[in-house]
Each structure stands twice: as C-alpha cells, then as structure tokens.
C-alpha cells in the first residue's frame, strides 16, 4: 500500500495543505476513504416511455488493494457503472467517489488516481511504439514520464514486453496488444484501475497469462482493480470479491469463496447410455432433476442428491437397470450462483459482450 501513501504525499488531491495537515491526510488516506465508493447511484438513458434504467440505486464500496469482479449479463449496467466512476457518464442520482473525491465535483483531481481499459478498445496508439505509448499516457494521466521510466521498464519486464519496447504496437500479436493496453493503463501509476472485459478475444494461453499478471500486479503493486467480465474463469481466478449485477441492480456481493460455498454443492452428474426418456421421467418423480443433457455421449442428467439421497439415487438407478458410465459431483461455479440468485436462464446471457 506504499503507493497510496506516496500519492498522498505528492498531494494532487490536497495541493494547498500544510505539511502537518498533509501528514494527517496521508494517514487518513492509508486507512481512509475506500478506493471506490458508490452510493445510491442511478442512471437512466432516454426520455419518457423509452427511458431505460441502466443502473438502479446501486451502492457499493471497493477497499484499497482489493480486486473486485463485476459480473452480469448484457445490459446489467456494468459498463455504465464503470463509465460513471470515470466521469464519462454523469449519474442521475447518487454519488461516485474515487479515493474520497466526488467524480462529479472534483473530476479532474480524481482522474489522477484512476484509469481504465474499456471493452474492445485499442486504448493506445498503434502507430507509436510500446514505450512511446507508456510515456504518452503517463503524461496524459498527469505524471511526468521521466519520473516513472524505471516503473515502465519494470512493467514491460513483467508483462514480457521488454523485447518489444521499441516496436510499433500495430506490429504486435493480439495478445501482446492487449498487454500493451494494460501496460499503458498502468503507466501513469493509477491506483484504481477498471478493466472491462480484459480477456475478450484472447486465446486460451494469452488469457491465462494475462490473468496471472493481473493477480500479480494487484498483489505486488497494491493496486485496486475492478474487473468486469462475462468470463467466469477470469473473475474466479483474479478477484477476491464478486459483485453480481442484473437489470441494473446488485443481486450478490460477496467473496468468491462465500458465493461458491453458499451455492448448492449437492449436485451429481450421472452419465449412462441407458438414460432414455422413460428412465428420466421416473427419476424426475423421485428426485430434483436439474438438467438433462441428451446431446452428450452418453446422455447425462444432473440431480440434487446430497447425503443419504445419493444412496437413494444409486438404488433407483440400479432398479431402473441403468449402467452408470460416469458419476461425478458437480462443483458449482459463479454462473450457477448467478442463476440461483437471478433465475435468469444461462443462455440469456452471461456470454457475449457486456454493456
């Protein structure tokens, strides 16, 4: 958390304080206001009957140094929330504070500590080299680039871009471009960083590397990161805490462990070539059958069968003459949790781009 303290010392938020007051501010800020504090935030788009409420009375706080995931289907309000925190969208009601500074009042001051990688954006200049981008965007976010040259070297090293520092971004692979985009967001030393769909369009390997880097940067640099993604793997791998949004409201807000722990853990998946319609109908009468997958080879069903019910299930399967090919417990993932909380069918969409 040294970065927060250092930033308080540089004092862009409190330029006219005396030294003693500033020291108080430093101390206050180390424990002080959360990195992001949203209260009663509401945003509607359009007028009259066509008006759409994108975000509806949302309140949340993100502590310094934490990594929080925003999860939700299209139109849940994730991107609107992020754009509001950046001051790109002004809320209709409520307040958004970044390190205690209201984004609406002291917008420009707040910007010194926040940056974002927005969904699907190039986010940097492809005609400039990697290092030129870092220097340019450090300056734009209010930091003298010469004073953070060492930090840029370290960032490039860490993201495995050191060899490409003097290569124009347009000549890099997609995965590398995404890493440059991330590096340019971190170049100015922002302490609160929003990443909207950071792994979108990356292949499996690049996405895995990026996730590992995010986690490492969060820990080593003491960054506060808010990740919005429909990619559960990214959220589960990177985030301490998950905020689930649906129709502009928060439906869940807890640690990943707590959310997964609270979900139904007593689900088993049974696969067998003998699972015909009659057998399944018979099982449905006696058990809570969650899903039937006739497309898989062999067909499979997912059944709630915790504790002694598991014995009942195996008895029923034997009675029905079902030879089990595969039996496994189903580990709930965040998507299951989301479905439980909202009742939204999965194909309605955690998949696809957010907005």
């Amino acid at each position: 958390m040294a970065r927060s303290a250092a930033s308080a010392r540089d004092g862009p938020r409190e330029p006219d304080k005396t030294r003693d007051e500033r020291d108080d501010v430093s101390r206050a800020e180390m424990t002080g206001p959360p990195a992001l504090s949203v209260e009663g935030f509401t945003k509607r788009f359009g007028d009259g009957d066509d008006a759409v409420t994108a975000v509806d009375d949302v309140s949340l706080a993100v502590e310094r140094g934490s990594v929080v995931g925003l999860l939700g289907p299209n139109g849940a309000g994730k991107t609107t929330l992020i754009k509001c925190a950046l001051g790109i969208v002004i809320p209709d009601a409520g307040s958004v504070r970044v390190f205690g500074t209201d984004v609406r009042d002291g917008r420009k001051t707040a910007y010194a500590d926040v940056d974002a990688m927005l969904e699907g954006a190039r986010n940097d200049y492809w005609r400039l080299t990697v290092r030129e981008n870092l220097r340019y965007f450090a300056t734009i976010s209010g930091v003298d680039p010469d004073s953070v040259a060492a930090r840029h070297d370290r960032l490039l090293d860490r993201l495995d871009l050191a060899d490409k520092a003097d290569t124009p971004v347009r000549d890099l692979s997609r995965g590398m471009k995404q890493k440059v985009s991330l590096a340019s967001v971190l170049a100015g030393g922002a302490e609160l960083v929003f990443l909207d769909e950071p792994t979108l369009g990356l292949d499996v390997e690049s996405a895995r590397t990026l996730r590992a880097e995010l986690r490492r940067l969060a820990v080593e640099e003491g960054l506060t990161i808010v990740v919005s993604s429909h990619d559960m793997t990214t959220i589960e791998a990177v985030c301490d805490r998950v905020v689930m949004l649906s129709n502009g409201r928060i439906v869940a807000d807890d640690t990943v462990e707590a959310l997964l722990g609270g979900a139904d853990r007593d689900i088993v998946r049974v696969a067998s070539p003998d699972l015909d319609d009659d057998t399944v109908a018979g099982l449905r009468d006696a058990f809570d059958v969650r899903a039937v997958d006739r497309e898989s080879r062999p067909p499979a069903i997912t059944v709630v069968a915790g504790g002694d019910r598991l014995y009942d299930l195996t008895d029923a399967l034997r009675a029905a003459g079902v030879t089990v090919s595969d039996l496994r417990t189903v580990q709930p993932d965040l998507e299951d949790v989301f479905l439980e909380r909202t009742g939204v069918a999965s194909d309605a969409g955690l998949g696809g781009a957010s907005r």
Partner: protein
Amino acid sequence: MSNDASRPDAAAADGASANGVVGDSYAAVDEGHRPATYYHLTRAVLYREFLIFVRYPANAVGGIVVSLFFFAALFLGGQLLAGQALTDSIEGIVVGYFLWTLSVGAYSSVSNDIGSEVQWGTLERHITTPFGFAPVALLKGVAKVVRTFLTSAVILAVMLVVTGTGLSLAPLTVVVVAGLSITSVLGLGFAAGGVTVLYKQIGNWLNLLQFGFVALISAPVFDLPWTRVLPLAHGSAMLQRAMVDGVRLWEFPLADLALLVSVAVGYLIGGYFVFEYATARARRLGVLGDY
C-alpha cells in the same frame, strides 16, 4: 479554466516540497513519481504528432499532392477561362489558396481527430485526464496546426515556383497573421468537434463547411465591412496585404491588428464553450465515447 490551469503547477510545487521534506522512504517503491505539468503535456502531444508525421510521411505527402492537384486544376482551368485576367490576380489566388489549406488543416484537426480517437478507444483516456479534456484537445489542435503550417509551406513553395510568382515571405508577419486568421477556424473546429461528440451524423456533414471557407477567404471586406467579424475574412485581407504588398506586421494599423486578435480569440473561446457544453451534455446522455 483558471483553476484547471493552476492545478498541475500547484501540485508540482507541492510535490517538490513534499519530496524534500517528507523522507524518501517511499521513493524506493514509488520512484518518486512527479506530477506532469503543462510543459510535459505540451511536449507529449507535440512529440506524438511529430512521431506520426515522420514515421508515416505518406499521409502528409498524400495531403500535399492532393492539395497541389486541386491548385493545378484551379490554375490551369482558370488560365483557359480567364486568360490574362487570371495571371494578373495569380498572387491573390496563391495567397488565398495557401490560407485555405491552412484553414482546412486547422478545422479538421479537432473535428476529425475526435472521430479517430473514438474509433481507437483513446478518446476516453483524454477525457479522464487530470488536465481536463478541452485543454488537451486544444493542445492537440495546436499540434496539428503546427504540422499544417509545415505542409502548407511546401504547397506554397511549389505554387510559387510553378506559377513563377514572387511574394513577400517575411516569416514573422506571415506566421502571425496567418496563425491568428486560422485560430478562428480552430474555434469552429472545436464547435464542430463538440457537435460530433453529440450527433455523429451531423458531424460528417459539418466537414462540408471546409468549402465555405473559400467564401470567407474571399469575403468582400471593403464593400461589406461587417464581414470582417466573420472567421478568416479580415485575416485573409491582411494576409493579402502582407504577402502581396509586403506590409510588415508592425506597419498595420493598430485597429486592424486588434480586430484580428479579437476575432481569433472570440471564435476560439466561443468554440471552446460549445465543445465544453457538448461534452458535458454527452456525459449526461451517456453517449460520450459511443460511436
């Protein structure tokens, strides 16, 4: 604006004193990052423009070739139609065309730039700058104007050689008069950029305004004195006198210079306010950065 202007400097001073007084215990971790001042911002924006200019010369050369092609068409076509009459007024045409290429560059610098930045996803990052969106956009506009001066100078040189015309090219006078003339256009570009942020389609149509600059450059300022308060008109008349008649900057009547400055500053401030208003409205509507 005064608040904005003072902030980075205040922060810089504060940062410097704090660095001196408070121990360097954080420095190892933080490498003592210093706030950027407007000097750093100006340097970064101009340097980016310079890099793209030298690294992708084809764009600049292409622009010069197209401009020269239009001029050649104008010159040769005019000779066919007007004969000797055209040759008599060729100096005026060269000066007018020079000013027009400058104006188009200044105008499109802001309005087109915003479109490109939105496509690249870099616009948001210029909005979320502690310097404020408008000052950065203004600096980018100025950077483009500097670049336009370079390309227009090449065009001017070729025009002079091809037509065998001689003009007074006192650098200070030409740069100051032409620069102030197109400052008003920069203001129009800002207003158009603001409108583009709000209404994308209208933004494209606004590009047609560039052809309206021809009328402004050739406005009859002697017969209709009120046209002097329009963008370009008064400056164009002064540039003609400077380049054709060899009048130096300090030889102009004070009233002429005052009007030149007033028109420049007036339109720039007006355009700047339209831009600020439009981006504020785009923030409320949630359309800023959506394209």
